């Protein structure tokens, strides 16, 4: 296959056999209780320099409390897959945690744009679809997947994709390299203590993210029994052996919502938007919501409050389909 064009963006590839060896030795087959405090999960599995992936959106079912804990523990030189992380990518940049970003959608607010303009953060261009396809390739254990997207654009030029002549049809086609994140972060509606997990509603790629990632941390609204899981196995999104840590984090998506459980906190998003273009305001935001509280529980207690929590629960009037 002749390479017709190669993108110049920075990315890393995993040897599929090294990945298999990792999966063989490092992913536990036995059902063990993986419930642990959020701080411990992040301390154990998120290292400086890691590649981090997040599912699915800042507004809906995103593992926001895990991101806050990563910032609180001041991880550095991370590379981040940004798709629907409209808010989290900016928070991680503002907190000095990131070295680079794979861009599907960079993030909202001028601060993150400024970091790119000033060269303080590296970016590799992709698209929401091709970045998610890279996770599917990673999940399948193949080194790349073909796509008819990206072609003939500057997005491709500054991506890590290659254009080749398809050996079957003779036409140009883009190949996107697999991504195997060091850590995948997924927030779920329910799971058992071993990590058998259920996500309800539409989403980006919870299963692909858990399969592709070497370590997967899930945060959950609710812990249920394995017996419950076995009664309705078609509801299981992620089987336990893909999961390394289970964090019990009710309201863990805030300020986003968890479908059918609580609505997103629009006021908080407006506060974030006001801070996202201004360094002193963003520093104050990080201090208020992350550094000045020790944990997700303290965030809920001191920064959100019972009245707001109850109101956001009350607003979640649409339940159908989310159980």
């Amino acid at each position, binding site marked *: 296959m002749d390479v017709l064009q190669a993108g110049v963006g920075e990315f890393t590839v995993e040897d599929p056999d090294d990945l298999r060896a990792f999966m063989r030795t490092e992913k536990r087959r036995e059902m063990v209780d993986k419930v642990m405090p959020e701080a411990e999960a992040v301390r154990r599995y998120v290292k400086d320099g890691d590649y981090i992936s997040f599912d*699915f959106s800042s507004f809906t079912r995103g593992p926001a409390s895990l991101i806050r804990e990563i910032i609180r523990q001041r991880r550095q030189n991370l590379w981040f897959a940004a798709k629907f992380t409209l808010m989290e990518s900016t928070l991680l940049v503002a907190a000095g945690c990131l070295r680079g970003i794979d861009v599907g959608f960079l993030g909202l607010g001028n601060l993150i744009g400024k970091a790119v303009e000033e060269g303080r953060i590296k970016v590799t261009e992709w698209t929401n679809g091709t970045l998610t396809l890279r996770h599917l390739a990673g999940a399948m254990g193949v080194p790349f997947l073909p796509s008819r997207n990206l*072609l003939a654009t500057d997005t491709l030029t500054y991506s890590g994709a290659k254009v080749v002549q398809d050996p079957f049809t003779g036409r140009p*086609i883009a190949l996107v390299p697999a991504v195997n994140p060091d850590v995948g972060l997924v927030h779920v509606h329910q799971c058992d203590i071993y990590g058998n997990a259920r996500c309800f509603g539409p989403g980006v790629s919870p299963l692909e993210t858990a399969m592709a990632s070497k370590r997967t941390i899930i945060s959950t609204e609710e812990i249920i029994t394995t017996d419950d899981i076995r009664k309705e196995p078609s509801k299981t999104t992620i089987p336990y052996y893909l999961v390394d840590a289970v964090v019990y984090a009710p309201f863990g998506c805030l300020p986003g919502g968890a479908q059918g459980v609580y609505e997103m906190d629009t006021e908080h998003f407006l506060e974030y938007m006001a801070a996202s273009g201004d360094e002193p305001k963003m520093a104050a935001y990080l201090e208020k919501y992350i550094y000045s509280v020790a944990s997700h529980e303290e965030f809920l207690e001191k920064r959100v409050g019972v009245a707001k929590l109850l109101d956001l629960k009350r607003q979640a009037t649409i339940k159908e389909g989310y159980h």
Partner: protein
Amino acid sequence: MGLDFTESEFMICQCARLMEDGKIVFIGYGMPQVAAILAQRLHAPRMVQVYEFGAVGSLPETPFVRFTMGGPRNCYRSLAWTNMNTIFAQAQLGMVDLGVLGATQIDRFGNVNSTMLGADYKHPEKRFPGSGGANEVLTQCWRTVIVIRHERRRFVKKVDFVTSPGYLDGSREARERAGIPRGTGPWRVVTSKALYGFDDHSRQMTLLGVLRGLTIDDVLKGMEFTPLVGEKVEQLEPPTQEELRILREEIDPARAIIGETARD
């Protein structure tokens, strides 16, 4: 622009008028969402909205809430909830008739920039969010509508960065030669003043209509390049009372997307 409606309202109404009943339509964030709800309430009740996170055929609850897209209100009463790889695969398969997108910059061949401004990618003057799902939509949907404000800095001779492909250099079958699906491409450009299509042969942007009360010159002044002018340039009707009532009373009473009129 008059006092009776906002630029956003006119763009949304134009966009809604281009959405046909019974078609499968890929909906981008913000204005296209509001346009889709409007179209469904007026002339396209059987249009199937699809979203990049996998909702298919949703009937969004109103009032529309700012920021909502993957949440329960926007995904209400869907036919299916899938995920991103599935929905983009269905677009690649040829199942999506129309896509609707916003853009930062566009050129005469419909190439779209939503990534950065400036001559040097390594040192952008201004960095924007990037493709999101725009590249997929403009590559895979049979037709794509691009919604963009009518400003000279947005209608440029050459976009600073091709985020999503239009007709590239305008040469014959340029998209097909690059491997992009045959028969796809930008179809209409909707602005706060005008409506454009693309010439079948030269692939150049072609003025099809201007907002009633404006002249062709009024419109061309707001562009860095001169588009082709269609044989018959239509007068575009401003939003009707019914369209405005649905937008202001049912869909967006908080005016998060439609904006405020000068009279308010």
